[in-house]
């Protein structure tokens, strides 16, 4: 019994890693006053290029590297369109997501030509768990917290760093000023766009890694739309976490428990007539929707979130 619980919580931590990384990136971007809906597309592109790179080089860390580069490119494109060109952020976000969906759909077929062979291509080597010596030996906590991939540890470090950065540093204060009132921030000599672009680059890195984990760590294949709306889930977690790093982290963990439950329900053959597998697949989306409906009501984010800011010349 205890093993099942440990296994379940450990799986929840594993599932929360990509969403937690992406959500932290989005949190920083939103704190600077930008609503980046293209996170989903960033993750999908990351998942795709990581898969292709790993498939041809056999080195999953190279895959992570290319995912980071492509992730940054996508968020920078978003930045250029919404900040420099001042186009509606929601519109650009939706457009870039559809672009990522179409581009990966086509390029996957162009590269692997799957219609020739019925077996979908798989990567041979994946990013595996990296148990921390000694710490992973601790009963219960060890296998749950310290027997994960390196990116889970990065997430664990990232959350306190983000909290400290936002609360106790001048840079963090400036960043929040950009999100609350860029006009005043600009007046005070803060370069609003510099902060926003920096945060977008960080989000690109984290989003790229997050997507890559789905194709070269948890799975070995690329499937169409493999991220399946998880970028949007990550943004929803930021809303549910009220734009605070720790609360977002907690919300992500609760979501991941649903996802891990869903995977277990399918894997252990609990799917039956009274609980069809489609309901298991539907569960994460349903839970996110209900959570948003119950706890996302009129929550106040940064005052300028999603609004276009144009510098008066």
């Amino acid at each position, binding site marked *: 019994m205890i093993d099942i619980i440990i296994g379940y919580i450990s799986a929840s931590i594993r599932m929360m890693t990509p969403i937690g990384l992406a959500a932290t990136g989005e949190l920083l971007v939103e704190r600077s006053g930008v609503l980046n*809906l293209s996170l989903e597309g960033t993750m999908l592109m990351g998942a795709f290029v990581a898969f292709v790179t790993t498939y041809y080089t056999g080195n999953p860390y190279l895959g992570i590297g290319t995912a980071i580069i492509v992730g940054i490119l996508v968020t920078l494109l978003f930045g250029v*369109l919404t900040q420099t*060109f*001042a*186009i509606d952020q*929601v*519109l*650009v*976000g*939706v*457009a*870039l997501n*559809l*672009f*990522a*969906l*179409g*581009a990966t*759909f*086509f*390029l*996957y*077929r*162009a590269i692997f*030509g799957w*219609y020739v062979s019925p077996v979908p291509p798989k990567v041979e080597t994946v990013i595996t768990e990296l148990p921390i010596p000694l710490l992973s030996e601790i009963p219960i906590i060890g296998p749950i917290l310290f027997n994960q991939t390196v990116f889970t540890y990065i997430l664990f470090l990232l959350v306190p760093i983000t909290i400290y950065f936002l609360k106790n540093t001048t840079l963090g204060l400036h960043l929040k000023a950009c999100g609350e009132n860029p006009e005043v921030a600009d007046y005070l000599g803060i370069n609003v766009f510099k902060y926003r672009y920096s945060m977008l680059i960080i989000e690109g890195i984290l989003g790229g890694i997050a997507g890559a984990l789905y194709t070269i760590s948890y799975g070995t294949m690329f499937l169409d739309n493999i991220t*399946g*709306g998880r970028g*949007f889930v990550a*943004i*929803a977690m930021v*809303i549910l976490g009220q734009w605070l790093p720790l609360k977002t982290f907690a919300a992500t963990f609760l979501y991941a428990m649903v996802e891990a439950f869903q995977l277990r329900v399918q894997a252990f053959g609990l799917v039956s007539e009274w609980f*069809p597998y*489609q*309901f298991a*697949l*539907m569960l994460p*989306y*349903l839970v*996110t*929707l209900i959570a*948003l*409906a119950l706890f*996302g*009501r*009129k929550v106040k984010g940064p005052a300028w979130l999603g609004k276009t800011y144009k510098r008066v010349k």
Partner: protein
Amino acid sequence: MLYFLYPVIAVGFSLGIITLIIYGLGISPIEGLGTLLYSSFGNAYYTTETLVRATPILLVALGLAVAFTAKVWNIGAEGQLYIGGIAAATIAINSGWMPAPIPSILAWIGAGVAGASWALIPALLKAKYEINEVFTTLMMNYIAIYLSSYLLHGPLMNPTTLFPETVIIPPSSQLAKLIPGYRLHTGVLFSFLILTPLVYIFLSKTIYGFRLKLVGSSPEVARTSGINIKKQILIAFLISGFFAGLAGANEVTGVVLKMRPEISPGYGYMGIGVALLGRLNPFGIVLASIFMAGIVNGSYTLSMMLKVPIGIANFILGILIVLIVLGEVLISRVIEARKASFEKESIKKEKRGEK
């Protein structure tokens, strides 16, 4: 002028990218583009097939034009289409005993209402609790697709073949074919000739359309002039959901003649691109939907005849949307520049006049 020119440039650009891809795959671009053009508009049969393909895209995009006009970003048309399809199939199967046009009319109305009610949930969440509709509609897409998959594997499954799809709808529920031997059906005619002008009139000539435009372009002005913004959001959402539902009904009663899990190859998402490409103008959307349908149908032929990987249509859709969004800036830049130079001119003239 610029507003009409830009979509044309974007289309030209994306065709250029197709040519490059085809060339990259080692196929002669002339042969490739020729095949693409021929298989979408080459003869009467292909042209009618393109119109049949364009209809669901047109229906989705017409509804989205209404929503986007009010800046309601409903990206849930795909899910609303599926729910509409389920409703249409259920009605069509059970009302087959009625004389011919009635069951299909009932199916269309029922599908529209079903799509609108699916859109009502995110609409209420946005209007009442200010929850961003992009998330809620997207989540509801997945829920709708899994829900219809469940229904088609369970209660609605074809009892004789045991395929996860409904039985073929009775003949009296099927839309009449216009020409024997072609799939062109009355739904195509109805959508292009009746619904398109209706949406145009609604958006451009009525107070309802004007209110939506005002809410979309300057919500502050709308509020001070006494427009109930929440009501406008609900209206925009319900109309777009209704039209997405109709797209589902069109596929069930006119094309596939049953409901199945993969009824839509992404019409809900194509509609977003087509609505933007058509600049939210119903007649522009007609042209854009035919273009998109031509690319979709042409890409199937390309993959069969020349082994161009399938999915080129999705790729083009993605590029087109980004180009259109980018075009928005260029246009506003040009207009601003013109305004600025005009103002300078008039200031100069004034000064000269004083002297």
